[in-house]
């Protein structure tokens, strides 16, 4: 490429910002530029062209009354000076259109939305390829690169004791969930299933471990009353929709110059088609990952259904066919999380998600047992199996602390999160810490957020960082309980929380839609666009700025750490983690947390 000499001419009295941006692009590309002062007479500009011996002239001028005549006269003067054939002339500015520029005698016109690269391409005489400017996203494993080293000796010692205690307690214990997961792991071959080959050995063994609802499905063909199978015509239309949509997909990036936080949003409309509709929009508006939500009854049901099913209420039914369709519709760069954390299918969810190709899952014993309705004993046994499968299928899992929404204080929720994390690490998995960024009952009562939402949320991240070197992914979703049905408020609140997360340097955030607080109907896709747009603006606004710690943050950080240490000490003193869950050490009835009942009495010795 030859070096071009470019004269930049701001004919506009004030607006030369665009030209200055183009100058930077040209100089970065190795060209020589001369930027004239604004508001010269066109005769003076022609003299500069002759004197400077330039290859290209780029003029900026906002069109207005009489301006077209001025610009046409400028081109005529260049022509009369005998250099028009040697010099390319382009014009840019508000209201400029290529057709108008050609009419006035210019070689090119650049209107609003022109990129710097487009102007550089004109100067270099090459074709401008918008494709080259498309956002190219690659899938990121953000749990890589952390050592999981514990930095707090007292907490480390207690976590070691507790993890050992749990593993010893669980040795030889099993449950229907653990057995189904083993059957799914050993006898269900995803390739054979994709080829429609029968798996009679799997089905026979699987049904024996299922509850009534799935058993009725496999043995009598009875579906859950809120579900129906898609018709063949619907499936064909769906495939066509996916094909058409993928052809026109363009991805957006929300982080501007940052590499993180990655932005996740949730789907779970009940219908895989509608989910995919939402997911494709989310991808196009910048979501880096999506989280699968299953129905609440799925957590209480022993076993999964099969088939391509839609559901008339919130939560999309986990079946191999549903997950497979959703997986196939995703862009290659999109991270896909399938939650496994809270119910009777926890380990099998991990196996199924792993076999179908999910990137991430979600496991937390304490939330599932104290806020998710599952019996603590059962979930402890099941979660250990789930973590082993998460390691086997190389799926990092977040350890969500949603029990805070029940009223459990952050330090207790974090103690539970760290116990699950320690177990996960010991079992070879890669847990991700998920503190809530949330106006939780604890702060509503305690007043920590009366002035601002920044310091207590920041203190949580600071506390975790003081304790362990692990990835952090605030959720779930950020800003939960600060949102209202007002979409502007809700989007702004989400964006501020995401901006705070970015300034704290966390790895990812999960955001809600602006419909989060609306309970009158399903979340709509424009509500997802609302918050993705808002978060993009926040990340653009804050850029790579970081946030300085305050004395209040440090005080709360230290309180949280001390609280965690104290709770872990109480678990150690109990000598029995499951007993500690039942007894409220990690979240009590007074806090608002209740040990779940689903699956009680189903744990047995192998």
């Amino acid at each position, binding site marked *: 490429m030859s070096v071009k000499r470019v004269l930049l001419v701001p004919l506009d009295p004030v607006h030369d910002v665009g030209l200055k941006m183009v100058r930077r692009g040209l100089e970065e590309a190795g060209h020589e530029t001369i930027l004239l002062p604004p508001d010269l007479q066109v005769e003076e500009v022609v003299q500069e062209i002759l004197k400077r011996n330039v290859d290209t002239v780029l003029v900026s001028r906002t069109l207005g009354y009489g301006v077209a005549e001025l610009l046409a006269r400028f081109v005529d003067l260049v022509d009369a000076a005998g250099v028009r054939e040697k010099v390319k002339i382009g014009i840019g500015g508000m209201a400029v259109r290529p057709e108008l520029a050609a009419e006035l005698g210019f070689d090119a016109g650049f209107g609003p939305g022109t990129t710097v690269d487009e102007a550089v391409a004109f100067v270099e005489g090459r074709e401008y390829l918008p494709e080259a400017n498309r956002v190219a996203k690659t899938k990121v494993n953000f749990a890589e690169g952390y050592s999981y080293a514990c930095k707090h000796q007292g907490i480390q010692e207690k976590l070691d004791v507790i993890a050992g205690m749990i593993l010893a307690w669980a040795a030889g214990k099993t449950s229907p969930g653990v057995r189904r997961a083993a059957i799914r792991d050993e006898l269900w071959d995803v390739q054979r299933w994709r080829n429609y080959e029968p798996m009679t050995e799997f089905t026979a063994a699987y049904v024996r471990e299922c509850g009534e609802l799935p058993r009725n499905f496999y043995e009598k063909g009875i579906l859950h009353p809120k579900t129906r199978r898609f018709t063949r015509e619907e499936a064909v239309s769906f495939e066509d929709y996916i094909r058409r949509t993928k052809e026109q997909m363009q991805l957006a990036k929300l982080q501007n110059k940052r590499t993180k936080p990655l932005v996740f949003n949730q789907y779970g409309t009940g219908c895989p088609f*509608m989910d995919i509709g939402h997911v494709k929009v989310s991808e196009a508006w910048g979501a880096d990952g999506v989280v699968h939500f299953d129905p609440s009854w799925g957590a209480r049901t022993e076993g999964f259904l099969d088939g391509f099913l839609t559901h008339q209420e919130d939560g999309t039914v986990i079946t191999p066919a549903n997950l497979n369709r959703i997986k196939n519709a995703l862009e290659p760069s999109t991270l896909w999380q399938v939650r496994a954390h809270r119910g009777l299918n926890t380990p099998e969810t991990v196996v199924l998600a792993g076999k179908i190709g999910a990137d991430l899952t979600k496991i937390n014993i304490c939330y599932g047992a104290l806020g998710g309705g599952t019996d603590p004993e059962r979930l402890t046994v099941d979660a250990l199996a789930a973590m082993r499968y998460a390691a086997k299928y190389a799926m990092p899992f977040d350890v969500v602390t949603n029990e805070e929404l029940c009223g459990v204080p952050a330090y207790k929720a974090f103690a539970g999160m760290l116990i699950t994390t320690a177990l996960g690490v010991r079992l070879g998995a890669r847990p991700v810490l998920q503190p809530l960024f949330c106006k939780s009952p604890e702060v509503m009562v305690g007043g920590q957020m009366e002035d601002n939402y920044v310091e207590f949320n920041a203190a949580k991240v600071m506390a975790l960082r003081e304790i362990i070197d692990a990835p952090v992914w605030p959720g779930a979703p950020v800003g939960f309980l600060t949102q209202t049905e007002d979409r502007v408020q809700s989007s702004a609140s989400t964006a501020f929380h995401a901006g705070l997360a970015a300034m704290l340097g966390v790895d990812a955030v999960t955001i809600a839609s602006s419909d989060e607080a609306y309970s009158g109907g399903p979340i*709509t896709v424009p509500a997802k666009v609302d918050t993705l747009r808002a978060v993009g603006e926040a990340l653009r606004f804050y850029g790579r700025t970081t946030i300085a710690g305050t004395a209040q943050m440090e005080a709360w950080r230290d309180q949280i750490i001390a609280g965690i240490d104290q709770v872990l000490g109480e678990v150690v003193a109990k000598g029995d983690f499951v007993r500690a869950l039942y007894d409220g050490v990690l979240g009590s009835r007074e806090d608002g947390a209740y040990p779940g009942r689903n699956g009680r009495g189903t744990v047995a010795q192998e």
Partner: protein
Amino acid sequence: MPRILDRVMDGLDLETFLVCQSDEEGRRLIIQLLKEWGFSDVDIVFSQFQGPGSRIRARAYVHRSGDVYGWLKPEAEKETP
């Protein structure tokens, strides 16, 4: 109902400012408006009455989960406006 509504992925929101004398009046008027336009599955997502009237957002669901979605139909079958 015009076929162009097939292209609405899920819900259609109507957000405006209604000159009215109370929150209740604003809510009643906007629901009445959507119903007059032929929508039946309608709700108020947000309403804030202050001073001269209500800043209000109403929603008409065109496609709910589990429905047969117009936007899934092949392109050729769609009526273009």
